C-alpha cells in the first residue's frame, strides 16, 4: 500500500496544530483547578475574617488568665464585664464527652454489624438508612431534645429541668453516631479479606476474627471515626443550644444545665453591637473553636489516611 504510507508522511506537517478541543481542555483544567483549591482559599479566608473581627479584643481586653480560667461569662455587665469561657469549655467538653460515651458503642456496634455480619439487601438498606440519619437537620434533633427528651428526663429522674448535660449528650451522641458508623464501616471494609480468611482457617470463631484480627487492623480508621465524632460534637450548635439549658455553669452532675461555646456565639452575636468588646470576644471564641475543630479534624484525617503509625 504505497499510497497510504505517502499520505501519512504528508500529514506530519501539522503536528503542532491546536484545534478547539485543545483550548477547551485548557480552560476546563483551569476551572477545575480553581474549584479544587477553593477549599483552601475559603478556609484561609474564613480564618482571616474571624481573626480580624476578634483581633481588637485579643489586643485590648483579652487576658489569657481571665479568658480561659474564669468561669464567669458576664459580657453585658455594664460596670465590670467578664469574659471567662472556662464554664463554656466545660459545657462543650462535658456534652461532647457524654456524646462519645453514647455514640462509640452505638456506632462501633452498627459498623461491625453492617460490615461483618449483614449481607445483601439488609446491608444495603442499613447503609442507606445510616446516611439518611446523618442528614437529619440539627434543629430537628434539638427539637427532639426539647420536646421529647426534656419531659422524659423530668419524669424518669425526678429533676426539675430536663434540659441538661444528659439530654444534650444523648442527642449529640445520636447525631454523631451515623457519620461515625459510616467511617468506622469504611475502616472495617478496608481490612483485606485475606486476614479474615487466615484467622478463620486457623480456627478463630467469628467474634475472634473480628476482635483479634479485624478491629486491630482497622484501629487507625476507627480512631479517626471517633475523632471526627468529637469534632462534630465541638462544632455542633443548634441542637446543643436547644437541649443544654443554656446556663453558664460548670456541671457537677449529669442533670446540671450547661452552655456550649458554639451556642453562646449563636445566641449572643445578634444582640451585640458590631465592634464592641462583647462582639469581639465572641469572635475570639470563634477563633478558639476554629483552631480546636481544625486540629481535631486534621488529626482524624491523618489517622484515617494512615499517615500516622501506631
Amino acid at each position, binding site marked *: 500500500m504505497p499510497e497510504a504510507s505517502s499520505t501519512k508522511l504528508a500529514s506530519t506537517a501539522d503536528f503542532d496544530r491546536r484545534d478547539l478541543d485543545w483550548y477547551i481542555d485548557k480552560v476546563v483544567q483551569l476551572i477545575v483547578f480553581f474549584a479544587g483549591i477553593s477549599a483552601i482559599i475559603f478556609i484561609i479566608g474564613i480564618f482571616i475574617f474571624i481573626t480580624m473581627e476578634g483581633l481588637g479584643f485579643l489586643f485590648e481586653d483579652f487576658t489569657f488568665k481571665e479568658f480561659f480560667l474564669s468561669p464567669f461569662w458576664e459580657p453585658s455587665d455594664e460596670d465590670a464585664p467578664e469574659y471567662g469561657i472556662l464554664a463554656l469549655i466545660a459545657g462543650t467538653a462535658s456534652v461532647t464527652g457524654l456524646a462519645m460515651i453514647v455514640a462509640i458503642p452505638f456506632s462501633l456496634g452498627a459498623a461491625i454489624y453492617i460490615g461483618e455480619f449483614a*449481607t445483601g439487601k439488609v446491608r444495603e438498606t442499613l447503609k442507606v438508612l445510616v446516611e439518611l440519619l446523618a442528614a437529619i437537620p440539627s434543629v430537628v434533633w434539638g427539637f427532639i431534645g426539647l420536646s421529647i427528651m426534656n419531659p422524659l428526663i423530668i419524669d424518669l429522674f425526678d429533676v426539675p429541668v430536663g434540659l441538661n448535660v444528659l439530654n444534650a449528650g444523648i442527642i449529640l451522641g445520636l447525631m454523631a453516631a451515623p457519620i461515625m458508623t459510616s467511617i468506622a464501616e469504611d475502616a472495617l471494609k478496608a481490612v*483485606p479479606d*485475606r*486476614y*479474615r*480468611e*487466615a*484467622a*478463620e*482457617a*486457623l*480456627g*478463630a*470463631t467469628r467474634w*475472634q476474627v473480628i476482635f*483479634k*484480627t479485624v478491629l*486491630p*487492623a482497622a484501629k487507625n480508621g476507627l480512631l479517626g471515626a471517633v475523632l471526627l465524632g468529637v469534632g462534630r460534637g465541638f462544632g455542633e450548635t443548634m441542637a446543643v443550644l436547644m437541649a443544654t439549658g443554656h446556663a453558664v455553669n460548670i456541671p457537677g452532675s449529669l442533670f446540671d444545665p450547661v452552655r456550649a461555646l458554639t451556642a453562646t456565639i449563636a445566641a449572643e452575636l445578634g444582640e451585640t453591637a458590631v465592634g464592641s468588646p462583647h462582639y469581639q470576644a465572641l469572635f475570639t471564641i470563634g477563633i478558639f473553636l476554629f483552631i480546636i475543630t481544625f486540629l481535631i479534624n486534621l488529626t482524624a484525617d491523618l489517622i484515617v489516611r494512615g499517615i500516622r503509625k501506631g
Partner: protein
Amino acid sequence: MNAIIDQDDNQSPEYAIHTRKLNLWYGTFQALFDVDLSIRNGMITSLIGPSGCGKSTFLRSVNRINERLGYVRIEGDIDVLDNNIYDPAVELVQVRKQIGMVFQRPNPLPISIRDNILFGHRLHNKGSKADQDEIVESALKQVLLWDKVKDRLNHKGTELSLEEQQKLCIARLLPVKPSVLLMDEPCSALDPKGTAAVEELIWELRGEYTILIVTHNMAQARRASEECIFMLMGKVIEHQATEDLFVTPAQKETADYIEGRYG
C-alpha cells in the same frame, strides 16, 4: 518434637481424607461431581488440573473454609481421620484445628512475627503463657526461618519478603498441631528461588503431616509430591503415585494434559 501433648491414636488410619460422592454447588453452578478420593495419611498428595477444574474448590471444602462465601451447597461426605466433618454435630473450630491451610497469596496478619506464630496457639490454648518463646522458636526452625528472623520477632509479619511470609504462614499452623495441611498453590506468588525454598520446606514436613497441595505447576507436582490427583471439569480423572501418573498415565485426558495439549 512435642512429646508432652502427643495425643496420637495408637493406630492412625490409612487415609487422612476420604470423600464419598462429594458434590458441590456455588449457587446453581456445580463445581464438583461425585468426587471419591482417598488421600493417604502422612503423604504429600498433589492436585493438578487446568484452571476451573475444581481442585481449589475441593481443597477449600476439606476445612470448610468455602462456607464463608455463604452460597455454597454440598452433598456427600468428607471424612478426615475417620470423622465426617460435615456431620451437623461437628464444631468448625475443631475441624480447623486439625486441618491447617496455606493460601495462594501469603496472608500473614498485620501483627508481629511472634504474634503471627502464636495466633492459632493462643486461640486454642487459653491461658497457657508458658513455653511461648519455645513454641515460636521451634515453629520458625521447622520452616527454616529462625536464623533469618530471630532478631526481629517484633517486626510485622507483613514486612517480610513473600517467600518468608509464606513460610511464616506455614509456621503459624504448626503450634496448633494439625494433622492435615492444605496448600492452595502456595508458590504461585513466589519467584523461582522462593518456590524452591518453599518446596524444600514442604518436602521437609513430609511424614509428619498429611499434605494436600494444589498446584498449577506440573513440574512442581512431579518434584514435590508422592501421590498425584488429576482433576478435570469438577471430576477426578486419575489418582496414582506421582511417578506413575507422569510416566504411564492411565487415562487419555491425563496424558493430554501432562503433555501440554490443553490447560
